[in-house]
């Protein structure tokens, strides 16, 4: 076996020397029969096919793609994990305070911590939410925090996803699959359970109900429908939560309440776990031609007759420009030092930082504040001189619209191939749930892995796969 990586590897220091987290696993692995592992690997694919785990439907042809699954677990020890939990908890709480403030008093702007133009001109800032506090003062019930390791054992936060983060179903399916594939291995380790995610999700959704007296509020999961790329996850979660999976056409506002169309007629809904974006929620308040939402929903919401999770307008806090202010946000609302670090980010809206960015474009990755999916991006080390000078002008024209980060070398983890273990870059999405100022972080999370050699792109749409993530109990 030759195992070679230029960047930080989570399992091997070098070919002959294994890091503590992986010692037990690698010695187990070395005792396995090659043919048996090949068979287990193909069994894994079968499991996923049979359960219908898929992420993207109806591209050019009517096809569902499976997210490739790698059978080698990613292992994190309890000490590292405890720090992550504290750090994520801190971020999630601070974000909720920030949202409460930004839609009411805006103390953080008055105190000069965040420039007003970052908020005012931001499309993720919803005017419809100003002066309104959501039921139970909770905005970000469900967060997906993306973390990476670079060249040391420390995790950095890459993104806070508090709009409609997905991936929890894959985390659970991955664990189910590992237990089917390697029952003996998993019982030998003390791996913390992650499949209780849906239990906690159910609890926080119940707690978020606007009607305090109701023991069993009527909760629904709102999906754009079966052609949505994450439909599998929507159906999976509705099933595990024991709630109705609804589309906009199943819902209607009647007498100031939200109702769903049942076989016995209309029935009131208390909580919507929505998996559609803000702008589609209500054609009367947002995008007029949306068929995915419910006309009049926002009015019901403003009357506190329904809870929407996550609250509309949370996007203002996970925006790329606000991201760079999260450490300041933590200090401002919690008076604490941030536990988890951000990836170094240069705000082009600040004079000195802009100067540095313009002088070092060939080393940096520049992103549009509102861009996503790799659009409007400059990858300095790969760009031509002409591209760089063109981009320079774009930044100068509207510096507030850009941030820059150094090119990151994500850590690697071993994946299984027929030729043996080989390193690939990974990231980690952790799921945090918030209710009544209490945060629950599910043990582990979803490790995404770039399956192509050398690739840093972990996105499932571009050849990324996933792994089970093991947090070892102490």
């Amino acid at each position, binding site marked *: 076996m030759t195992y070679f990586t230029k960047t930080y590897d989570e399992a091997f220091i070098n070919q002959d020397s294994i890091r503590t987290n992986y010692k037990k696993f690698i010695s187990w692995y070395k005792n396995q029969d090659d043919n048996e592992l090949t068979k287990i690997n193909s069994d894994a694919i079968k499991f996923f096919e049979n*359960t*219908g785990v898929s992420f993207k439907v109806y591209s050019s042809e009517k096809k569902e793609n499976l997210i490739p699954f790698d059978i080698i677990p990613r292992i994190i020890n309890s000490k590292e994990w405890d720090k992550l939990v504290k750090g994520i908890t801190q971020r999630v709480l601070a974000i909720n305070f920030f949202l409460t403030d930004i839609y009411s008093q805006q103390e953080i702007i008055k105190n000069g911590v965040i420039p007003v133009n970052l908020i005012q001109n931001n499309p993720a800032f919803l005017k419809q939410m100003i002066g309104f506090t959501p039921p139970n003062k909770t905005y970000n019930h469900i967060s997906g925090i993306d973390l990476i390791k670079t060249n040391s054992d420390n995790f950095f936060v890459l993104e806070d996803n508090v709009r409609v983060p997905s991936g929890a179903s894959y985390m659970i399916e991955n664990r189910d699959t590992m237990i089917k594939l390697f029952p003996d291995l998993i019982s030998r380790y003390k791996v913390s359970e992650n499949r209780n995610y849906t239990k906690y999700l159910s609890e926080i959704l119940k707690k978020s109900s606007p009607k305090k007296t109701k023991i069993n509020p009527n909760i629904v999961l709102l999906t754009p429908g*079966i052609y949505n790329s994450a439909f599998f996850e929507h*159906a999976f979660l509705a*099933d595990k939560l024991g709630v109705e999976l609804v589309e906009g056409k199943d819902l209607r506002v009647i007498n100031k309440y939200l109702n769903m*169309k*049942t*076989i016995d007629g209309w029935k009131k809904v208390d909580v919507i776990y929505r998996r559609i974006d803000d702008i589609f929620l209500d054609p009367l308040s947002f995008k007029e031609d949306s068929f995915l939402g419910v006309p009049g929903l926002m009015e019901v919401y403003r009357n506190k007759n329904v809870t929407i999770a996550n609250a509309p307008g949370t996007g203002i806090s996970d925006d790329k420009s606000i991201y760079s202010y999260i450490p300041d946000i933590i200090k401002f609302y919690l008076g604490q030092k941030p536990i988890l670090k951000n990836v170094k980010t240069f705000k082009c809206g600040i004079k000195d930082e802009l100067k540095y960015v313009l002088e070092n474009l060939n080393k940096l990755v520049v992103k549009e504040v509102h861009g996503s999916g790799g659009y409007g991006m400059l990858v300095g080390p790969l760009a031509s001189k002409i591209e760089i000078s063109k981009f320079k002008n774009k930044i100068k024209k509207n510096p507030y619209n850009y941030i820059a980060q150094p090119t990151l070398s994500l850590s690697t983890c071993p994946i299984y191939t027929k030729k043996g273990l080989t390193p690939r870059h990974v990231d980690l999405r952790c799921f945090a749930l918030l209710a009544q100022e209490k945060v629950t972080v599910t043990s582990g999370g979803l490790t995404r892995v770039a399956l192509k050699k050398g690739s840093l792109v972990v996105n499932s749409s571009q050849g990324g796969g996933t792994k089970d993530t093991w947090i070892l109990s102490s």
Partner: protein
Amino acid sequence: MLGSTADSLFWMFRYIERVENTLCMIESGFQLYLLSSSNLNNEWDAILRTNSIRHHFLKKNNSLDSLNIINFMLKDPKNFNNILILIEKARENARRSRGSITSEVWEAINTCWLYLNEELNKKINESKIQTIIKNTREKIALIFGFLERGMLKNEILNFCYLGTFIERFDNTVRILNTRYYLLLDEKKIRFEGYDNFQLEMILRSISSYRSFMWKNQNEIKANKVSYFLISDKDMPKSLIFCVNETIKNLRSIHKKKFSKNKSYLNALNIQKKIKQKNRNLNNYSFLNSLFQLNITLAANIEEEFNFQ
């Protein structure tokens, strides 16, 4: 329970039942083909008419070639009721109601869909037809097994069964309708080629030949076959059995309020008509009216339970 979920469950099971029924017919035709039977053409003609696809098939084909017909029924995109389309629709409805069925039921449907897609997208080889039919029927049995053993006995299950029995009634009444002349009183009948063999084929096309023979001391007679398919309460594909099951499930959904509902009243009406019928079947309009009533009943159900 959402109206749209009831809709998906109902149609999921209509399509699953339709797959099973279509396969039975293909199998009965294929058996004759293997025996090079002289009745082969008549049989395929009846099967195509039962499925209302004769016209579509003959647009493309000049003769009733067995393998062409089988291919047409299994996978030809020009046939909107081909097996691939039916299983696709069944699975799509299962996906929509994924939160209401157990993961076992879902996986059973999904695996059936995966299997048929893999097998039917290859060139269909004569030697594999029986294997495909057998394996698919086993997979469908698995769906019903998990449904029966693992699901709560509540309205979710009721809608699955409503779809199943409305569809099964439709299938049996179509078969009877297509071949009603075979079932007329023997004294009155003047039909060329009439013989027991064709009665046998009716039974085979719904996989009920053995059970008929077992019940009737190995003797095939037109009136007995028609009684068996229409009025025998023990026979799971008979019209009376299907409508009884429909009534049972409607009662269970409506709880105590069933007596005023259109669907329930219409189902009772069908039951009454069948009971009143003399054992000797002698008119086409009787079957045709049952066929129409069943369509109305399905529409009543869709309307009453707020399907979409």
